[in-house]
């Protein structure tokens, strides 16, 4: 009797537990909450303090910009209603749109704009360049201000409409007055989404809600420009460090979109009928090899040039991406499909001519000094690059000492100018977002200002002159000629070696998520969610 009561209780308990536990779960999602998995967790909230792309993406959610780049890479007004350029090209007068408000209800004024541009200009390389030409910002009234230049500068609008890190986001004056080297602690913007600070759980999720008072432009959305119409109530960025888990969650309908699933999971996603792959960034990315100009043997341009002869793009792209749908061999430094696309100076380069390279090394007197090649092992999109470089270089007679490390160790080490035998380095491989390298001024690796250049520290007056001329030029035809000159010079100096374009496909629930904008950064205005 006692045993049967226990058994009956156990069965009832199990049934109850099962009823609680094993209920289908997909129906639990709120219809107007878009749940996405971004490429990394959001840790820092100041898009001026860091160049990290996840923080740039956060910036696009909550801040707005004066100008934006559209799908055709043209710069279009965003917060700006109208602007005029004086005949001598020294004064730009900007008037803000009506009805621009911050999330705290205060109107956006020219004071906010000027303070924001100053803070951005203190950190961003393109901003620094712009501010070096600026004589003054003059406030006309709450909605109008003038940017007065010392001498004509051809990239004013391109700078203000810069699409990638650091983006000149507009913040309230009190926030923008924060020291550029101190992280902001007030996250009020005037963008289409509001950052839900109370719901932010670092390492877990970041929540944005629709900003009801946001006034989108009337033009249709195009790239990062045009009307930013919010079609969902909330966007949740969920942190999922395990890609397989994110893919499983997408298939199970627990999330709606993955920004950047790795290439090895693309076949799984392609085979899944409920999933749609979306190439939201058609400009893609560019693989790059950076050489350290400070130390032997790469202090010799002839040895550096031998590397440009020995490498070829396809080997790298096949080794990392694999699927030709997601890569493109492209010898244009400023990206194929853009106005500055050119193959100038590329004849005979990046074609793995081992005999030619071997001869060049002999002529340069290369003595077999081992090349310390840093190999990043923890980022899938970079892991296979260094072994390919090692293999190709060794076939031409280079001795290569490939040292494996995690990306953060590499990032710290590449900043060191010490000799490679004392903790320094000779070469490493990385990737740029194409939107960051569309011209010689934007492209950080082209900076050849010796100590002031990025790690690798190329030093070339001629290159700096070309970049300077480019920044002063506003005629597109002359800009193109200067870009070609910069590309030729870059391959002579070997500021860096571009190793092909590659693309990431975002993955979305088919029939549920629609309208993901085609842009250099993942943005969520105009995205709608139908169904559960």
């Amino acid at each position, binding site marked *: 009797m006692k045993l049967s009561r226990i058994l009956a209780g156990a069965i009832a308990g199990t049934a109850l*537990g099962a009823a*609680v*536990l*094993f*209920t*289908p*779960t*997909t129906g639990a999602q709120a219809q107007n909450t878009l749940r996405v998995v971004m490429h990394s*967790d959001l*840790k*820092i*909230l100041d898009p001026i*303090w*860091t*160049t*990290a792309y996840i*923080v740039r993406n956060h910036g696009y959610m909550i801040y707005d910009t004066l100008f934006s780049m559209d799908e055709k890479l043209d710069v279009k007004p965003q917060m700006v209603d109208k602007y005029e350029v004086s005949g001598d090209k020294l004064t730009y007068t900007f008037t803000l749109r009506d009805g621009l408000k911050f999330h705290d209800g205060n109107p956006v004024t020219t004071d906010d704009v000027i303070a924001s541009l100053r803070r951005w200009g203190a*950190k961003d*390389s393109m901003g620094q360049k712009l501010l070096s030409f600026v004589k003054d910002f003059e406030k006309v009234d709450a909605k109008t201000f003038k940017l007065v230049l010392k001498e004509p500068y051809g990239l004013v609008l391109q700078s203000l409409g810069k699409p990638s*890190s650091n983006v000149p986001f507009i913040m309230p004056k009190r926030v923008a007055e924060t020291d550029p*080297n*101190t*992280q902001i*602690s007030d996250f009020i913007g005037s963008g289409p989404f509001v950052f839900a600070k109370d719901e932010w*759980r*670092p*390492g*877990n999720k970041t929540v944005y809600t629709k900003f009801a008072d946001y006034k989108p432009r009337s033009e249709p959305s195009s790239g990062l420009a045009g009307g930013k119409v919010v079609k969902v109530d909330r966007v949740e960025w*969920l*942190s*999922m*460090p*395990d890609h*397989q*888990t994110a893919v*499983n*969650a997408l*298939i*199970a309908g*627990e999330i709606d979109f993955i920004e950047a699933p790795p290439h090895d999971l693309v076949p799984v996603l392609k085979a899944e009928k409920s999933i749609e792959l979306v190439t939201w960034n058609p400009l893609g990315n560019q693989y790059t090899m950076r050489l350290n100009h400070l130390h032997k043997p790469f202090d010799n341009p002839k040895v550096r040039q031998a590397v440009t002869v020995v490498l070829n793009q396809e080997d790298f792209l096949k080794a990392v991406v694999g699927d030709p749908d997601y890569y493109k061999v492209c010898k244009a430094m400023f990206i194929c499909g853009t106005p500055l696309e050119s193959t100038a100076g590329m004849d005979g380069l990046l074609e793995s001519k081992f005999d030619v390279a071997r001869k060049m090394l002999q002529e340069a007197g290369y003595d077999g000094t081992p090349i310390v090649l840093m190999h990043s092992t*923890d980022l899938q999109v970079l892991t296979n690059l260094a072994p390919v470089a090692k293999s190709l270089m060794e076939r031409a007679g280079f001795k290569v000492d490939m040292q494996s*490390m*995690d990306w*953060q*160790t590499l*990032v*710290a*080490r590449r*900043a060191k100018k010490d000799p490679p035998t004392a903790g320094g380095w000779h070469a490493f491989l*990385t990737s*740029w977002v194409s939107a*960051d390298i569309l011209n010689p001024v934007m492209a*950080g690796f082209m900076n050849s200002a010796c100590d*002031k*250049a*990025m*790690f690798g520290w190329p030093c070339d007056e001629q290159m700096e002159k070309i970049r300077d001329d480019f920044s002063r030029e506003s005629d597109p035809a002359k800009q193109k000629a200067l870009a070609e000159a910069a590309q030729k010079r870059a391959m002579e100096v070997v500021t860096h070696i571009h190793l092909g374009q590659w693309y990431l496909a975002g993955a979305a629930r088919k029939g549920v998520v629609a309208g993901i904008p085609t842009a250099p950064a993942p943005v969520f205005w105009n995205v709608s969610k139908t169904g559960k």
Partner: protein
Amino acid sequence: MLTFVARRLLATIPVLAIVAIFVFLMLRLTPGDPAAVIAGDYANSQQIAEIRAKLGLDEPLVTQFFIWAGRGLQGDFGESFFFKRTVAELILQRVEPTLALAVCTIILAVLIAVPLGVIAAHRHGGWIDRIVMGFSVLGFSVPVFVVGYLLIYVFAIQLSWVPVQGYRSPADGLGDFFQRIILPSCTLAVIYIALIARITRASVIEVLGEDYIRTARAKGLTERTVLMRHALRNAAVPIVTVIGIGIALLIGGVVVTESVYNIPGLGRLTVDAVLARDYPVIQAVILMFSFVYVLINLAIDLAYSFFDPRIRY
């Protein structure tokens, strides 16, 4: 007993001091620079240097240590380099999921493993024993993430009984909580079931050969009473030890499970902090883990006297 507990708690102070010095030095001597991580991939040397100065990382090591240790003694472990949050706040946010996972796992493991071990010992050499030991070897050998993905594929994707990932606090509803914790707990429990079942079996087999067991049987006690009252209790000390070690190991073992099931716990916080070189977070978490290890060892010692009255402190 109280003197013993007080003495053991006092002994944690030098342990924690040594751990603090060791962790601090280890982190500073490991390659990597949090300022470079913060500045982003495309920052220049000047930007990185400015951030280093802002974080106080350009101070001499000794100065950095004493500033950190001084604040730590007052219970202030500083602010994360990345999140605009205090380390204490970050840890508090992450304790619950890890604790919930650890408790559910250990309950599940003990409830399954101890009976399995006892049965295997009782049927020593029989087919049940072989099955239990076979499972034990399998449990040790299969990596946690393989078990995790397998369970997700079957129960979350194919059958849709439970969600693939995520965590809900029990405060938000027990149903949601159990739905999300059941698979991670089962995944993590496999290895502990294997470990505890094996030790239980070995321990009970040893005890079953003792004279007092023969006496109990000679008295005419049922086999169940002999096993539960006499054999298991006397075999408990090594079992409790292995359960205690299991709890301590769990703290480290949750990392993979938390990643596979996307549980925002301490394991993931630690891994993220290590990868980003977030020194204040790593230091505080490791100190906390060390303290927990010491407490678990103390709890095990105290549990001995409960199972074996001959042991007195």
